[in-house]
């Protein structure tokens, strides 16, 4: 069934400051297909799509739409030709409400006098509500974007992209911040769109998603085109081999470490209303997973433990000592590290270099006299970059210029450089490719083997089940269940994760 491709990109080349990131890349999309674009972090997927959208301009190469050559010099032109995109890095206008974000740049107007005509806010909210209702999303169209969670923001981005009546929709890691329930909603929409002839270019590092939704798959490696094939001709192992260039055994390698005494004991921790009376402990050499639905309060719990929220209450014992953590510095002194879930907001200083980001928490430790020794710093950072496989032209480059996955590696490198005893990871593999994910799991294994303890939040149930020794499940700010490794099952986790009313009842009796 080879028809005229709706979109063809040929011989695309692109360099950033003389570093080649795309080398003669090609891509061919049929109408009404879901075409997965795969590759490791930094392979050039987002860059290729940004060229298609007119965000970047290619150094050379052609783009054909319906067989006719086109040039997009800005997103407006691309959108006018029926191409829309969900961007990998979420880009909401925080001080606007949801409906305004969805209709940004194409507001519903009352008059016809161009940009001076009145915005029909009511209509926009109404239309937004209709869009949400149609897919079953519960977000207020009038809510400020600032007040939404990461997951909700991503849903809004998704709705925004599919509400533009586009013929080609690019989805660059649309599911990095949402859980399975919302993924299902997305896939349902994708299927509907496919039926109506819309082509979808789908980028994700989640293998299960690819094989459940993609019709065909193009693979890039290090900025080179590797292959393009029907999804039915491939399987997970073959695909991974194409992407990584070698075989990967075992996605969740489980290192057995000796589990020792309790290193952290959390008593009655609350950060109302998001976290309520949480009790648990963490042992030496243990990987403790925290599962739950989006908004369960997992992030707030670990942030509170880390000293981010001044109004948090409760007591914390580290190695049997009662410690007071009032600010993040206290947590760091107690050898706790927090790898946050939102690298752009809380994890990185995007306009600083990779090097500066990696050493920022460890400066006092590396240079106790307050004076930086460049040689020593370079040495330490070089080691980290090799250890965590950060792909970059130079450690002096701004973190901003790294691919999403490589940014995540920088965050991890930064925190592990502090030599922590207790490592809290909030969605540590978000946006990371399979190879790198495996590297992180191996790393976690190494950490616990060396007698450290890991507290890992993940919204990917497979991941927590694959990695953790024990799982806590949270719902509405409380711990609703605890499972030992032998009892792990998806059903049980989901059961505990959806125990909603308990919280409410307690609130009323309080």
């Amino acid at each position, binding site marked *: 069934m080879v028809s005229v491709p709706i979109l063809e990109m040929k011989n695309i080349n692109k360099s950033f400051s003389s570093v080649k990131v795309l080398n003669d890349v090609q891509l061919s999309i049929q109408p009404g297909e879901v075409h997965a674009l795969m590759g490791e972090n930094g392979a050039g997927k987002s860059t290729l799509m940004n060229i298609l*959208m007119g965000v970047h301009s290619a150094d050379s190469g052609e783009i054909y739409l319906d067989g006719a050559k086109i040039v997009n010099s800005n997103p407006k032109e691309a959108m*006018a030709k029926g191409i829309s995109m969900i961007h990998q890095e979420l*880009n909401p206008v925080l001080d606007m409400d949801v409906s305004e974000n969805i209709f940004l740049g*194409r507001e519903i107007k009352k008059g016809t006098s161009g940009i001076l005509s009145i915005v029909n806010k009511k209509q926009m909210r109404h239309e937004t509500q209709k869009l949400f209702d149609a897919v079953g999303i519960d977000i207020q169209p009038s809510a400020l974007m600032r007040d939404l969670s990461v997951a909700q923001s991503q849903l809004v981005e998704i709705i925004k992209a599919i509400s533009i009546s586009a013929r080609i929709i690019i989805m660059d890691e649309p599911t990095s911040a949402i859980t399975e329930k919302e993924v299902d909603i997305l896939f349902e929409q994708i299927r509907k769109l496919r039926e109506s002839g819309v082509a979808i270019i789908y980028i994700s590092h989640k293998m299960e998603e690819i094989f459940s939704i993609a019709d065909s798959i193009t693979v890039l490696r290090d900025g080179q085109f590797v292959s393009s094939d029907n999804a039915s001709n491939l399987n997970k192992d073959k695909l991974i081999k194409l992407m990584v260039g070698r075989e990967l055994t075992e996605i969740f390698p489980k290192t057995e470490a000796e589990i020792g005494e309790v290193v952290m004991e959390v008593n009655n921790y609350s950060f109302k209303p998001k976290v309520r009376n949480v009790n648990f402990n963490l042992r030496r050499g243990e990987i403790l997973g925290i599962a739950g639905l989006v908004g369960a309060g997992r992030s707030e719990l670990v942030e509170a433990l880390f000293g981010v929220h001044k109004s948090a209450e409760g007591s914390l014992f580290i190695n049997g000592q009662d410690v007071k953590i009032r600010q993040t510095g206290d947590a760091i002194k107690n050898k706790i590290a927090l790898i946050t879930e939102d690298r752009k907001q809380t994890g990185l200083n995007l306009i600083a270099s990779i090097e500066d980001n990696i050493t920022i928490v460890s400066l006092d430790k590396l240079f106790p006299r307050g004076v930086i020794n460049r040689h020593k710093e370079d040495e330490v950072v070089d080691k980290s970059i090799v250890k965590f496989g950060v792909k970059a032209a130079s450690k002096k480059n701004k973190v901003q210029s790294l691919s999403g996955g490589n940014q995540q590696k920088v965050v991890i490198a930064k925190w592990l450089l502090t030599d922590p005893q207790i490592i809290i990871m909030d969605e540590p593999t978000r946006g990371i490719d399979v190879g790198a994910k495996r590297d992180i799991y191996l790393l976690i294994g190494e950490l616990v083997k060396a007698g450290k303890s890991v507290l890992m939040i993940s919204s990917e149930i497979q991941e927590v089940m694959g990695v953790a020794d024990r799982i806590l499940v949270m719902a509405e700010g409380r711990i609703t269940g605890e499972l030992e490794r032998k009892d792990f099952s998806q059903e049980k986790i989901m059961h505990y994760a959806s125990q909603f009313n308990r919280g409410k009842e307690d609130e009323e009796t309080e």
Partner: protein
Amino acid sequence: MKKLNNIMNVQLMRELGIVIVFVVILAILMILSPNAFARPANLMNIFKQASINGILAMGMMFVIISGGIDLSVGSIVALTGVVAASFAHPGEYPLIVPIILALVIGLFIGWFNGVGIAYGNIPPFIVTLGTMTMIRGVALIVSKGAPVFGVTDAFENIAGAFLFDTIPLLVVYFIVITIVSAYILTKAVFGRRVYAIGGNEISAAFSGIKVEKIRIMVYMISGLFAGFAGLLLASRTVSGIPTAGQSYELDAIAAVIIGGVSMSGGSGRWYGTVIGALLIAVIGNGLDILNVSSHYQLVIKGAIIIVAVLLDVKSKERTA
């Protein structure tokens, strides 16, 4: 129901913090000087004195919401005032000529600022600092360094006349410009886009908004309003003074920020700016009337600005 009420109040408090501070300051001044300050004539007087800064602040508000800054407005006031006065001598040109000239010059300088920022990618602070300096020079060159006087009565009446014999036209202009600005900012598509480019320029560009075009228009609005303010000041002082308007930009920026617009762009409400402009005028008027010595006036004025915004911030934090 109770919960809804609660939310409403919190929202109100959040947004109206500075309004409350403003009312408190008004009340204090009324108590301190019931016979002079609280007289209706004086209240109208305050409005009048707030007008020129208020008009500049309205333009500045667009710029700051879009994420920029405009230091050139004070110099625009001087140049347009000088040019307008030069074309307002009796028996030379019809009244419309100085008016149009002032507006067009303001608009043009705003356009220049906008182009330098949007296409030249020069930081707003630098472009408008540059035009601030240049335009001040042009004003001095045009006027040969001395005030331009001898304008027609009609010209004097532009700012000096009254509506219904009671409301100074200055106040009328301020109100009209406020209404137009509020309309554009809250109702029109253009306003949405100003917030969008200030809130997240990249996202705005990704959404197909022509960021450069909006940016240029924002500076043109500021320039236009400054041109109008220059015309009004020349009419009010019955002369075009090349050194006029010095540090007006600081007062305009202060009004906008006191009103709760963030320097980093993307947020803020028009009525905050109105309150900001009124607050500055009230402080000046109140201290003059209480006959506080000039030196102490500075100390008190500075302290009130800090305390007003501090109270605003703290009231927001408590209710947030």
